[in-house]
Every structure is written in C-alpha cells, then in structure tokens.
C-alpha cells in the first residue's frame, strides 16, 4: 500500500484521531519484508509474549502450499487489537493465558513453549484446546485463552491479504452473479 494513501485511509477510518504509535505499527506492517519479527515493535506484547504469539498462531494456521499466520502477520494484528480494541480485562486475561502456556510447558517439558519441538507444541495445544472446550466460559464474559487465541488467528489470517486472496478466493468486485454453479469451478471458499 502506498504510504500516504494508507495514512489517509487510517485517518479517515479513525476520524483523524489516530495515535502515532498506531500509524507506526500499521505502517510497519506495510513495509516489513517478512512477517512475524522484522521491524515490528509490539505495543502491548513483550518480546517473549510476542514470540509466543507468533508460534501459537503459526501452529493454528501453518504455512502449507500457501503462507501461514506468521507470513500474514497475525501477530501484528493481535498486538494491535490488544492495544486498541480489547478491554483491559480481556487484554489481561489474554496475557495471563500466555503466561499459563509457559507454566504448563515448563511443568510438562521443563522448557518454554517456543523452545519445544513441533510434536510437543502440538501436544500442549491439544491439551489447551480440550481445556477450553471443557470449560467454555470460565468467567461470565471472557472466553478461554485458547478460544481467544484461535479467534484472533482465524480473523487476523483470513482478513489479511494473504488469507483472503491467496489461501481463499477474494471477491471484492465479482462483477456478476451466478446463483448456482459447480463448486469445482470456484475451487475454494470465497473470503
């Protein structure tokens, strides 16, 4: 995206009241060559939490024949939402959840999550998901950590350019309407 155009659109969307850090964050998103780290400086997540978020999101939607969550910079989306969208309560709950991931990891494998191998990471995440399913609403209005992480990743990925137009079929200006056609002619879901 053209930098000036991006700032104009952002200013428009936010009624002009956009903080410099937000602009910096999003502009970083437009220029960083590689997802995940690069020049991005998280506003809410610590470096360790940030790395953990990158790895969790990539395990949820990994690179396959199309790029995954890390390349789609889902980590930047999550940090942006935590900083500017979620309530303090939700943010604290999420950060606490990240802490528990490492507690669990250390209990079981004597190591932080990011240092585990693929198989151990998956085992741990399966356990987190089971826990979330068994206890869908630990508090009245807060989702379990894993559900929150998954929702962040799914929304962040499929609303990114990679997720919406490389992984799925983008249909921003379809041009015409066909009410009923063989799915094989489309091949992938519309984003």
């Amino acid at each position, binding site marked *: 995206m053209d930098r000036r155009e991006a700032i104009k659109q952002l200013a428009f969307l936010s009624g002009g009241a956009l903080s410099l850090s937000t602009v910096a964050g999003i502009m970083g998103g437009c220029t960083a060559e590689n997802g995940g780290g690069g020049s991005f400086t998280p506003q809410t997540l610590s470096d360790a939490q940030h790395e953990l978020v990158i790895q969790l999101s990539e395990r949820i939607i*990994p690179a396959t024949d199309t790029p995954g969550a890390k390349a789609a910079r889902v980590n930047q989306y999550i940090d942006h939402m935590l900083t500017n969208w979620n309530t303090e309560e939700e943010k604290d709950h999420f950060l606490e959840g990240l802490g528990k991931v490492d507690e669990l990891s250390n209990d079981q494998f004597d190591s932080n999550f990011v240092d585990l191998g693929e198989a151990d990471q998956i085992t741990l995440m399966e356990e987190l998901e089971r826990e979330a399913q068994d206890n869908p609403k630990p508090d009245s209005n807060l989702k379990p950590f894993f559900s929150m992480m998954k929702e962040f990743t799914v929304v962040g990925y499929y*609303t990114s350019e990679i997720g*919406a137009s490389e992984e799925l079929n983008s249909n921003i200006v379809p*041009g015409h309407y066909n009410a009923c056609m063989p799915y094989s002619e489309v091949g992938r879901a519309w984003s």
Partner: protein
Amino acid sequence: MEKKEYNISNPPEEYDAIVVGSGISGGWAAKELTEKGLKTLVLERGRDVKHGEDYKTEHMPPWEAEFRGQGNRKLFEEEYPMQLRSDVINEYNYHFFVNDKKHPYQTDEENPFLWVRGYQVGGRSLTWGRQTYRWSDLDFEANAREGIGVDWPIRYEDIEPWYEYVEEFVGISGQEEGLDHLPDSIFLPAMDLNCVEKDVREKIENNFEYRHLTIGRCAVLTEPHKGRGACHYCGPCSRGCSVGAYFSSQSSTLPAARNTGNLTLRPNSIVHSVIYDKETNRARGVRVVDRLTNESKEFYARVIFLNASTLGSTQIMLNSTSDAFPNGIANSSGVLGHYLMDHHFRVGASGRFEGYEDRYYHGNRPNGIYIPRFRNINEQTKQEDFVRGYGFQGRASRPSWGRGSGMEGFGKEFKQKLRDPGPWSFGMTAFGEILPYEDNHVKLSTDKENEWGIPQLEIHASIRENEENMREDMAETAVEMLEAAGGKEVSPYFGEYLVGEGIHEMGTARMGRDPSTSVLNGHNQTHDVPNLFVTDGACMTSAACQNPSLTYMALTARAVDYAVNELNKRNL
C-alpha cells in the same frame, strides 16, 4: 411572527417550495417539485456527501481497515451506542450513521427505543435495506375492518398509479407472483434464487397452501437503467455505490432535481421549526440553525414538505408552537407524536441442507428471499390470537472462514478444511406488523436540548400482546417450513427486539379522514395548515409488514402532484 430571539445573520430567502430532508422521501419531493418548475430549497441537517467521491470505503478490502472491518469498538461503545445496538454499523459504514453522543435523545433505560439515523445529504437512503414491496387493500383496509386506530384515507387504487410512477424511475428487480395481497411491481429482471432456495421454494409451495417463496424485490439494478449502472455484486451496499446500482437520493432523485436548474441544496441546516402566519393560516417558512456556525436563519416558501424522517418531522412540528398551535403546528387533534410503529423482528429459524455439496455461487447478491405474509390474509388463514401478519426474509448460503473460530482443531487439517465452504444453511427472519398504540409516543423534553438549542425528543414505545403472540407463531412457522423443506437440525431463534431497531419507524403524524383524530388528510396535507405537507414515515396510519420506503416514495410523488395543482389553482 416571533422571530426576535433569533439572530438573523443573512437576509431571508424566498423560494417556491422548501423540502426538509434529503433522504428517500425528501429526494422524491425535490425531484417532483423541481421538475414541475418550482424553485425548491432542500434543507439537510447533516454534512454534504458527494455521490461516488465520498464513498471512500466502497471496495476497501478488510486488510486495509484498521480493525479489519470490526470497527473501533471503544469509539462505537462510547459515541455510537444506539447505532451499535441496532447492529447496523461497522467499520466501513459508520460515517453514514449519527454519533449518538452528539445527537442525544431521551428514552426508557429498561426498554429503550433504538433510533437509527443518518444525518447527511442522502440521509438513510445511502444505507437502507433496498427491499421494495407494494402494499394492498389488505393493508389499507385493515384498521377500518378491525376497528383499530383510524381508517386510512386512501385505498390501493389511489396509490397504484403512483407505485407505477416511482417504480419506473427507481428500477426494482423482482419476480412476478400474481398475489393479490402483495401486488407485483414493474420489475427489472429478477436476481436468481440459488439451488437450495429453489428447492425450499418448491417444497414450501407443495406443502403449504397460501405460502410462497420468491426472490426479494429490491431497488438494485440488474441491468443499466436511466444512466445508472447495473449491480456488480460486491455486496456491502451501505458503503455507497458509485455506479448508482442501488436507488438512493444521491444516485437518482437529487441528480434529477439538480438537472432542472431549480434546486438549491443547503447542507448543515438544522430546521428548528416551521414559521406559522396566523393572518393567512399558512406556513410561511422555516427557521434554521446552521450546524457549523450555530447561526439562525429563515427561509420562506409557498409550500413546505417535511421529509425529515418519521421522528425528525414530528420533532420539528412539535417544536413549531404559536398562539394558534400551542402544542405544535397542525396539531389541533392532539395526536401529533402518538401512534409510533415499527416492524418487530429477531425471530426466525435456520437449518442445514444436504444434497448440494458440489454447488456454490459467484458474487455477493445484495438481496435475499421473501416469504410474503400468509396469516390473516383470508378466512382460511385467520388466527385466533393475533391480527395482521408477517413476512420472512432470509437466504441460503454456505459459511466461509467465519465458522473457523468455533471449529475444533488447528494446524494443516484445520486450514485445509476451511479452504472449502461449509454446509449449506438456510436462515430466515420474520418482520411483523406492530399495531398503532396511542401511548407509543414521542414528545419534546422540557429540560434537555441538543447543542443547537432544540428540545430533545423523548421516545416511549413497546410491543404488546398482539405482537408477542405473533412472535410465537413466527418461530413455529419458520421451523415448520424449514423442516417440511428437508432441513436438518432446524432450530428457531427468538431474540430480544427493541422498538426502533427495525428502522421502519412510522406514524406520529398519521393520515386520516377526520381532522380531530389525525394530522394529515388523504394527500399528506395537514388538516390544519393547507400548504404544509408531511410525506415521510410520520404519515403512516398503520404499519403493514412490508418494508415501507416504496410507499413513502409513491405517497410523496402523489402529494407533490396534488400540492402543485392546488398551488396553480391558488388554493394553497
């Protein structure tokens, strides 16, 4: 005229006609008045919006939106709470809805009225649902037949030629069905039903007498029409459409009015009140407060059309007091502000459909299906516990990645699964008629004003037993039809409905035959003040269950025709 308290910074201006409001009915008043040669001033309380160039989010992809389309939650919760509760605003369209904090009103905390508003040139015609249905004598005769409210002063034959007149200009896509109680419009080619919708249509018609499923009738072009482009099926119409594929004042009526050379459009002009001249018993003009400078100004004309939206027009009338009309202009009956209606909804059902896993669609159809009213349409369909009826709107579709948050698993398989669309599901929601109740009403606050010195509205409205009973029936028939159509896991939903969120607010300056029980006559002319007309939703005597905008348009064109004839005969 008591204008001493106002600081008139500019000389008054004189026109043939003044139209207050530039939304769906104001646009029509402007077009008709200017085309008949009247120098017309259109006053719009909100900002100017340039057709096309100000639709800045029109095809914005989610990755360019700051919150990926979810909107600035903190801003919405703090400044747009009522618009947010009505579930209509998002990151791409909220600039076409009011900031509730800047435009407050009073309502009951326990049972609030949700007042959805769009203060800009084009009003809510930029964001409307675009569904367009004629009414019939089942609707116009209902009050008289059942002894509810007052009788409509018109019948279908009075409005039929005006439906034809506006439809020809608007461009409405739809399918002829030949139903007496939902007369066909003049249609452009219909949008197609998808394969599951066709299947459901057939099964509903085979299983239930008097029930039909048709494609929604909508003011979206399926072919070029009067210089406007056909729909390109991008989907989110409420961001604005630069090719004018859906009807709005911006795409259609205001350009037509402009072309006559007779239109003056003044944005940022909040009408404070109508000026009444006791000597002539005429509305002399209007008082305006400039939204940006707070300066007051007066404009004069021979005829005045109020099209400021249902509650906007009533608010202006209530605030137009004089010795002759201490309770609001043209309110000798005392019914101004009463009999507020809407359409109640948030009841329906959904189910999964099998057998079409290899079928999909291309394009985002800005339209759904319609199941016309089938209750109380004849002796055979008469209900014991409620009068009137409801129609269903809905669609069949296949969910995309949105189902992912709630789907089990993660990793490669999870991603692969979301690459394909989910199973077909069919969902539908009923929209039902609300009866006119005297105590569903608005009045001016005695102690709260907005920042332009105009008393805030106080709004009180609730649904009653007839509507509650109807809601039970809505859920039952929705389930019964989807089950008969072969749906799996059919489940009803029964949500909370707050009056107003149908965004079909109607009434409060109703039409009627008797000046002692109504504000307007059969030509939308106030009984009391001959050159004052109200042709927006405020005029409605009953609510029917069809989307009302088409009827506002037809009534407006009809009223202008009458008003200009009367002007020419020097009767106004």
